[in-house]
């Protein structure tokens, strides 16, 4: 993968940028708590037994936390996948990972009806891992590692997995539900129903700890081995983190299309490919992006809500298209 030269280059500037981003996100987060049907004011936190308090504690704050977690972890999952596969267009949405997780949910619903969230999550994690590693096998066999071919194969592979899930779901009359699961929405996030999402924090931490190694792997197998990094092990670890994170997010919240693709790419255009440097910013950017989409979704047709997955889908597609067209090789003979 060709490294991109960053515009910002000093440590101090990184720290300032990070602090600024975190600050903006914090402010935006707090403000978003006040958007919604029930009128909420900052002092509602101190007035238990009012509707406003309940709205805050049961719905709004959990929703916000879920947003931040989902957005940051999916963005980070994207970065990791891009590094270990050495292709900037690989992401959970373009490698069949999301679709594999959904397949897992379908299977869990059929085999373990009425089972708790955790059980479904475990099945989804299993299928997500299987699907992602199958994609890795496909990737190994594609002889040209052309930037464009890989996501195309990934998308088609995802379509195949979707077709399998649709086939099974059709038989059990679950097709409508599959659509609901596939579209990311935070409206069903309530206190007591979303806590498993916290597991993604482990993924985020692991990603940060291994960031340097992911960068090395991103430069190629020979390079990595030369520097004493266990290539296969790190690749597998990276994909596992991405697959598990995706499964957890999809089970709790649903899929947010192309999040793991566009956020890392846009960040990398500004800050380059050094994962250790860009990881925190990418996480914040992912969280911010989802936050913005969520607010738009809640505001645009107030008091009805449009799912985050839909808004993010539109924005994500447009940005993805721009990225593709920029990546197209220039006209040479």
């Amino acid at each position, binding site marked *: 993968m060709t490294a991109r030269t960053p515009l910002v280059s000093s440590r101090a500037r990184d720290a300032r940028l990070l602090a600024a981003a975190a600050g903006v996100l914090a402010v935006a987060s707090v403000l978003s708590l006040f958007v919604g049907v029930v009128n909420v004011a900052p002092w509602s936190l101190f007035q238990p037994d009012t509707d406003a308090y309940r709205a805050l504690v049961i719905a709004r704050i959990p929703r916000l936390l879920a947003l931040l977690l989902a957005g940051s972890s999916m963005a980070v999952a994207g970065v990791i996948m891009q590094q270990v596969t050495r292709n900037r267009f690989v992401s959970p949405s373009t490698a069949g990972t999301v679709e594999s997780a959904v397949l897992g949910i379908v299977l869990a619903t059929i085999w373990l009806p009425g089972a708790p969230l955790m059980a479904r999550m475990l099945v989804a994690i299993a299928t997500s891992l299987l699907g992602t590693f199958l994609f890795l096998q496909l990737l190994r066999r594609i002889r040209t590692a052309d930037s464009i071919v890989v996501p195309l194969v990934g998308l088609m592979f995802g379509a195949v997995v979707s*077709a399998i899930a649709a086939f099974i779901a059709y038989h059990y009359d679950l097709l409508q539900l599959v659509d609901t699961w596939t579209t990311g929405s935070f409206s069903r996030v309530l206190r007591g129903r979303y806590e498993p999402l916290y597991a993604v924090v482990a993924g985020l931490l692991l990603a940060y700890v291994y960031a340097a190694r992911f960068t090395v792997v991103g430069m190629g197998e020979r390079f990595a081995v030369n520097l004493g990094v266990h290539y296969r092990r790190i690749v597998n670890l990276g994909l596992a983190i991405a697959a598990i994170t995706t499964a957890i997010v999809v089970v709790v919240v649903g899929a947010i299309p192309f999040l793991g693709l566009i956020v890392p790419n846009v960040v990398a255009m500004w800050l380059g490919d050094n994962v250790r440097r860009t990881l925190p910013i990418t996480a914040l950017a992912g969280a911010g992006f989802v936050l913005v989409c969520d607010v738009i979704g809640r505001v645009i047709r107030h008091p009805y809500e449009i799912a985050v997955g839909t808004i993010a889908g539109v924005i994500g597609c447009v940005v993805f298209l721009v990225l593709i067209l920029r990546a197209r090789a220039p006209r040479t003979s």
Partner: protein
Amino acid sequence: MTAVATPPTTASPAAATRDERPAVVRRRVAVLAALALVAVLVYQFAMVTGSWSYAMDLRLRQVGALVVVGVATGVATLLFQTVANSRILTPGVMGYDSLFVLVQTLLVWVFGSAVVVDLDVRVRFLLDAGVMTAFGLLLFRWVFRRNSRDLFVLVLVGVVLGTLFTSLTLFASRLLSPSDYLTLQDLTFASFNTVDPRLLSITAAITVVAIAAAVPLLRRLDVVALGHDTAVTLGVDYHRVVNQTLAVVTVLVAASTALVGPLVFVGLIVANIARQVLPTYRHRTLALGAALAGVIVTVGGQFVASRLLDFTTTLTVCVNLVGGLYFVWLLLREVSP
């Protein structure tokens, strides 16, 4: 980007003093034709329960739709793969079906379901097919610049646009009233079982015209398959031939999707069968093979799925599944995309 060079199943690698293949090819085309005929006859007449005349009428319509769509999809994918220099691409993934749904949704949103339902089904069909064709043509125009690699970009753009259309549809459908939404569900449901005969004849006509337009291109397509530089050297206007071929492909895929919905991976199976079975480079023969194989796959597939295996699933779900698995298998076999 080189595509696969898988050895055909029967040609011997040793040097032959005479080229046996033309005879082999002719025999195999005959076999394909026979199988296609058998498939159609079996579908039409086998295992009839209940009223004979009703069944005949229903089946005739279904067979008609299956044949038209099989031919259209098979030929379209074959031609597209030649121009794209790849065995794994298919125009079906490019979001035509999502566009179809989006168009219906927008119509209902803007004009209300009452108006749309009142619209003559043929007008609606032509509108759908027309919009999809325009989409395809614009996309090709916009993305395809110089060489076959651009077609990968093209397909990727198509896929992403498909997702965009789906998201926009979801967005727009949230703005509809519940009754409008229900009507929309009906309007966007397309399947083999409920084909309107008027629409069938329109699609059949479009398919015939498009393929007829493609026939003069086929010889030059043989040369285009050799790559841009060789084609230009041999005096073929590469860009013109490719653009015209892509136009034909678009029309065929749009018409087929408007009639029965998305057949994303069907073309993939059919085109690869044609190339595998017929060891020739001549597109006149390959296109014929793809048409016949298309009939066999769609008619035979639907027969097997609905009568033998007693699936209530429609062909689209089944064949997309099989085609998709075939796609994964092609990749695992180290086929270079």
